[in-house]
């Protein structure tokens, strides 16, 4: 533990520098758990994973395990996956269908919303025992944005749409591109990378710059026969970055027409082109042509348009993450098109992904280097496009700047530092109980 750590000196967005301690220091991580992950909207999964009453999946909010369950009335509820008796994990399946959840330790049994239903030898607890007070800790702030489930421990947090802010404009370009919306392919990629959670979040918020160097081998291997730098290159095209006051951001190439990434399956590319007119009518020219690009919603949810991978960087201490990645598809697409997106995402991203492999390699090596005393005390350079004027996009909120810049990253760390420098309110009393639920499917 580094007791002398000064949070205010870790991030200097004016000068464009970061202290490597934000990635490696255990004290910083402890503070992040309370000040970032205990009061941010965190992506926990997708409604299409649990269509029927009793369907559930387990997930995480930071390091806290949770259970997410479709209720009999069609709503979704979630609760901390911890028995209130001795702290045992209540549900140890990744997904399934259940009528109740019974703790394996002493048999305490919970209903689909986490309420304590029955306990063996209850008479031994006496007449004053209040069974209702010992339900699993409910997640009272749970909201769906067009099928995407987000949860927040902070009872005073703003509504989800307020937190998404100007980023909803770009998020809709992914999840609401066509009539009928989106759903996920069954299955979640889960794997670990020995790096700090902010490295991938930062890369997806602001870093198109790395692609031409980090992913050069995949881009060369996928290079089409009609390769044209003005259309396909990762570094010779221009584009824009966006960022919002909440810390979200992303980047994309300029395009007047849908220009899918070179690694997509031909059927997936054709779908993006064939549905362009419908998307343009729904989204307008600016978003409709944006069929590739990188994005992060603060703090740890990212996606790639076109490739349609969506993922969470779950923190596992300062030095490790658990990546959970899904593939999102347009609900109304024919099965063979959904399959083409699935295969494209598996081959490009995910643990075996030809592009994803290269990212992990960078982050793992950075994290190892940061064990050193000199490495920890040598500031990192976030000065690309420092002082560059903001650009404006007519009718689009938030902020915009040049694609190859650290502007969205500086904004991400500005927001991070702001939260880190604001002490978290005292934990809510356990006596506060309520129903954690949100509207029905597609609400």
């Amino acid at each position, binding site marked *: 533990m580094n007791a002398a750590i000064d949070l205010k000196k870790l991030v200097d967005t004016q000068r464009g520098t970061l202290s490597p301690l934000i990635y490696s220091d255990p004290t910083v991580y402890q503070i992040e758990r309370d000040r970032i992950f205990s009061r941010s909207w965190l992506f926990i999964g997708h409604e299409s994973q649990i269509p029927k009453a009793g369907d559930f999946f387990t997930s995480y909010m930071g390091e806290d395990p949770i259970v997410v369950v479709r209720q009999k009335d069609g709503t979704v509820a979630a609760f901390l996956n911890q028995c209130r008796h001795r702290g045992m994990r209540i549900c*140890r*399946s*990744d*997904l*399934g*269908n*259940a009528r109740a959840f019974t703790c394996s330790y002493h048999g305490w049994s919970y209903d689909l919303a986490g309420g304590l239903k029955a306990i063996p030898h209850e008479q031994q607890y006496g007449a004053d025992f209040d069974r209702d007070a010992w339900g699993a800790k409910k997640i009272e702030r749970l909201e769906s944005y067009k099928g995407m489930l987000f949860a927040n421990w902070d009872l005073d947090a703003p509504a989800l749409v307020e937190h998404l802010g100007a980023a909803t404009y770009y998020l809709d370009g992914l999840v609401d591109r066509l009539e009928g919306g989106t759903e996920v*392919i*069954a*299955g*979640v*990629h*889960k*794997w*670990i*990378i*020995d790096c700090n959670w902010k490295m991938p979040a930062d890369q997806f918020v602001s870093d198109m710059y790395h692609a031409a160097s*980090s992913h*050069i*081998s*995949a881009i*060369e*291997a*996928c290079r089409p026969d009609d390769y044209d730098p003005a259309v396909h290159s990762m570094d010779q095209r221009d584009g824009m970055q966006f960022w919002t006051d909440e810390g979200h951001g992303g980047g994309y190439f300029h395009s007047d027409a849908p220009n899918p990434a070179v690694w997509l399956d031909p059927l997936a590319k054709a779908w993006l082109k064939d549905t362009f007119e419908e998307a343009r009518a729904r989204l307008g020219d600016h978003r409709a042509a944006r069929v590739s690009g990188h994005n992060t919603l603060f703090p740890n949810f990212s996606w790639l348009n076109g490739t349609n991978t969506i993922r969470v960087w779950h923190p596992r201490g300062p030095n490790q993450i*658990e990546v959970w990645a*899904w*593939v999102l598809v347009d609900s109304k697409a024919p099965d063979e098109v959904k*399959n083409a997106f*699935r*295969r494209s995402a*598996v*081959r490009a991203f*995910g*643990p*075996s*992904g*030809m592009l*994803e*492999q*290269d990212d*992990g*390699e*960078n*982050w*793992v*090596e950075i994290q190892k280097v940061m064990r050193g005393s000199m490495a920890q005390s040598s500031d990192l350079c976030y000065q690309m496009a420092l002082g560059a004027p903001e650009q404006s996009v007519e009718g689009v909120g938030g902020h915009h700047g040049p694609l190859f810049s650290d502007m969205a990253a500086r904004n991400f760390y500005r927001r991070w530092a702001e939260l880190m420098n604001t002490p978290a309110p005292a934990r809510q009393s356990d006596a506060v109980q309520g129903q954690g639920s949100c509207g029905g499917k597609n609400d």
Partner: protein
Amino acid sequence: MTEPTTPPYVAEGVQIRIQQFLAYEAELLDDRKFREWLALFSDDTQYWMPIRSSRPPRERHLELGAPGTLASFDETKADLEQRIRKIETGKAWAEEPPSRTRHSLSNVRVRMQDGLYAVRSNMIVFQSRAERDEHWFVGERFDLLEEDGGPAGFRIKSRKIVLDQTTLLAPSLSIFF
């Protein structure tokens, strides 16, 4: 799983030839002779590593992801060739410097299935990377082999790789299985 479960007894000569084939294939991978390795697959081959998950007892049969769900690998022969091309650029950073691998196959069980050999084998793959990274991939392979009369004797019609992990404890799958 739809694989046959009758006792895996075939003629001793066939058993030995198939074990030799699998050892030869592993040698090509560990020697990083990826093009020669790929030549052992049929043109219509399927190379698939489904995802595994923990399920409640009565859903145990769904533990392995079905075809069409998210997978760790879902490849045609052309897809595998593209992965080899990536490595051959010398700029595939997860394989540059290259992984040092050791593929060990054991418990080889051979059954006849529609004129093909359905071969199950246990797999332990060790991967050493860079200075001191190491990863173990333990699981089972389900291969369909056909006699092809060529120098290697067989061709791989399909391969399913099942790892004994749900959450993968490695930063990437940059090697072949």
